[in-house]
């Protein structure tokens, strides 16, 4: 509980630090002078052809979705990992090892299937 208060206070402090710094710095610098060249979005010497909203490959979303799925599977391994030795000492070792073995088998099967189906290929 006390550490939670500390986390919240540190978060607020960092936000205040960053925002305060940005505000203070905006006071001391030279006043911005507008010019249409400065105002244009960054491009290598030519007028910009397109703005930020071009369509992007569906690959990125696929990567993100696959990441979420694998991430959930990995999260399930964490409580298993830290109590594995306890399980062995309570004679549940083989049961737990085999349950996780099946889970990992499904995980590995999924990974191999995705590699084979070229879902993870980038051109």
């Amino acid at each position, binding site marked *: 509980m006390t550490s939670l208060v500390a986390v919240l206070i540190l978060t607020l402090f960092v936000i205040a630090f960053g925002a305060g710094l940005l505000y203070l710095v905006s006071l001391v610098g030279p006043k911005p002078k507008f010019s249409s060249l400065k105002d244009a979005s960054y491009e290598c010497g030519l007028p910009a052809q397109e703005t930020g909203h071009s369509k992007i490959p569906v690959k*990125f979303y*696929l990567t993100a979705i696959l990441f*979420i799925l694998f991430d959930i599977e990995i999260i*399930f391994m*964490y409580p298993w990992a830290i109590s594995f030795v306890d399980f062995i000492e309570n004679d*549940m070792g083989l049961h737990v090892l085999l349950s996780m073995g099946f*889970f990992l088998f499904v995980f590995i099967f999924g990974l191999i299937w995705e590699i084979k189906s070229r*879902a993870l290929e980038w051109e």
Partner: protein
Amino acid sequence: MDMTTILFYILAIAIVVFSLGVVMTANPIFSALFLALTMVTLAFVYFLLNAPFIAGVQLIVYAGAVVVLFVMVMMLFDLKQEKEAFTKGKFTGFLKIASAGWLCGLIAGAIYMSTEMVVSGNQILDVNKASTKILAKELFSNYVFAFEALGILLLLIAVGAVSISRIKGGTHAK
């Protein structure tokens, strides 16, 4: 009121405000960012309820993965036309009324059930470091079938996602 209760109310109010932000801002990006804030605050509530591992999972999976996906999707599509399609028309009106009614029902149900609930103290286990181990013990004894089924379910979702991404044509393919 002790510290924990005060902190809980602060976090609860923050969650309500952020969730209202999700549904009330017109810009989908702001909605998604508010959703991320809601998830993070919810993780803090889990910390407060002495479930630190669940809180960490909430941060990693929801705030760090699911909402990142939402933000990625929304940032890279120009959602002007889709927004129009979802704010006008009879079908959308019906959807709005239906979901509002559903929400009212949920709230009423939650209030009704919370009056039935019996809260007894002293049920909190030795939570500090043992809670994750208790969770693991439950997971691998009583819920081991659900755990394995979840693994297969995740595999099926992965297969489905890959198949959908393969469909050529449509508005957003390639």
